[in-house]
């Protein structure tokens, strides 16, 4: 039975996963980190808090150091300097710990991104394997095209979820490119540079992938 619900569900999923694919893994990682620090009592929040505290202490100490003349009050200055050195060492250590903690989220970020984009699509395609999205008028297209459109398991004369999502995906990507182009040409050339860089980067990644194969 064709359903409008399925039609919109597939379109919404495709659009959302396209938008999500625009977000880089790093951004997602940072977002996850932000969320983790918002949970009170979590290790991330504690770490962040101690790091911030250390940072504040270093800054106040630096201010004191600047305010102290090393020539006139050498003893005071040297004591402050010793404290600063110790704090800085602690600060570096905390920074490293923080970085390593953050990077543990990178797998989480990339996995969740993959699940939300490709995974959801796959699930949909498998779940609605036999459900036609809509029917074509009889005889509108030749039989072999009907067969392709119903691929893999929909009744002949209908459009399958797989084929439909592919089509929607192509259109969404085209629209996205168009929007990006309009954005670039109206907002300014300087904004387009990172976009180009990103596309180039992806091309290189593909090349690298091929080399690996």
């Amino acid at each position, binding site marked *: 039975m064709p359903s409008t619900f399925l039609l919109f569900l597939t379109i919404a999923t495709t659009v959302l996963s396209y938008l999500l694919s625009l977000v880089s893994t790093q951004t997602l990682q940072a977002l996850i980190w932000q969320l983790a620090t918002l949970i009170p009592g979590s290790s991330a929040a504690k770490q962040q808090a101690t790091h911030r505290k250390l940072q504040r202490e270093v800054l106040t100490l630096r201010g004191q150091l600047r305010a102290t003349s*090393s*020539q*006139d*009050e*050498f*003893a005071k200055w*040297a*004591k402050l300097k*010793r404290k600063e050195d110790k704090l800085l060492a602690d600060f570096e250590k905390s920074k490293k710990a923080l970085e390593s903690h953050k990077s543990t989220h990178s797998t989480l970020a990339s996995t969740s991104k993959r699940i939300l984009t490709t995974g959801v699509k796959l699930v949909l395609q498998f779940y609605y394997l036999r459900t036609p999205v809509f029917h074509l008028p009889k005889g509108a297209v030749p039989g072999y095209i009907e067969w392709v459109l119903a691929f893999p398991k929909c009744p002949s004369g209908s459009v399958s979820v797989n084929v439909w999502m592919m089509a929607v995906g192509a259109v969404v990507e085209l629209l996205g490119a168009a929007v990006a182009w309009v954005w670039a040409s109206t907002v300014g050339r300087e904004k387009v540079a990172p976009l180009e860089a990103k596309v180039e980067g992806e091309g290189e990644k593909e090349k690298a992938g091929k080399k690996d194969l």
Partner: protein
Amino acid sequence: MSDEELPPMEPSLQSILDQKSLRWIFVGGKGGVGKTTTSCSLAIQLAKARESVLLISTDPAHNLSDAFNQKFGKEATKVNGFDNLSAMEIDPNGSIQEMIESAGDQGGSNPLGGMMQDLAFSIPGVDEAMSFAEVLKQVKSLSYSVIIFDTAPTGHTLRFLQFPTVLEKALGKISQLSGRFGPMLNGVLGGMGGGAGGVEEMMAKMESMREVIGEVSKQFKDADLTTFVCVCIPEFLSLYETERMIQELGNYGIDTHSIVVNQLLFPKKGSQCDQCMARRKMQKKYLEQIEDLYEDFNVVKCPLLVEEVRGKDKLESFSQMLVTPFVPPAED
């Protein structure tokens, strides 16, 4: 802090003389503050308290000969007028030069071996390490109860003391490299018919040196065996360098609890010398800072003398001030 009840530290180096377990004593500080004078004086005092004392200068600008008015070389020589005090001057750069030359003679036939050698000798601190290892080998065979190092000005000294860690890291890297490329290099060398196994041989040499150095650094980090005497003058830059040095020594885990403040001015009562009075005022300011900052150190104060401290007799009288604190004359 609980040590506030402790009596103030003695203003003399008596504690070093009394600490019989000490085997290595370093004397260091900025150039021109009187390191050599201090180390010679300390050596003279130690000679009275110990069986045998060796004074080694690692400063490329050797001053021991000048201080004692006697020529010293690479071999330990008895100082005239003392029976248990010897001195020697080593050149940190000399021994590495020799090693490279001798290596060049051996491996003259294969250029790759020479290249590896160049690579190995380009490790920072390796020249000091080599000369140091050399000295220690010599010193171990001779049996001195205490050895005093008159070190080169600050930066150099610190590099000298840091090298075990640096060298260990660098050697680790090189042995990794040679583990990967060694077979290939040896294959090439073997194919050329030149001295095969040169790389391995060199690695073995380096490895043995690392062991020696590791042992030495362990000794240097033992406060019972090693201490560092900082020499400074009451001026900003010298004080700054001293503070930096003390912090770095702390990082290396080397014990230091003595500071010698040299060249103090004590103008006579009713002195009309404006420069002297102004300088005295400045020195007073820094002395107060030193006492405030280094309350857990033996701070020895030595006056600026009117003559150069050269020769046995003058050094001996100067050395007295390291043990019995100098009493400044009355001031206005």
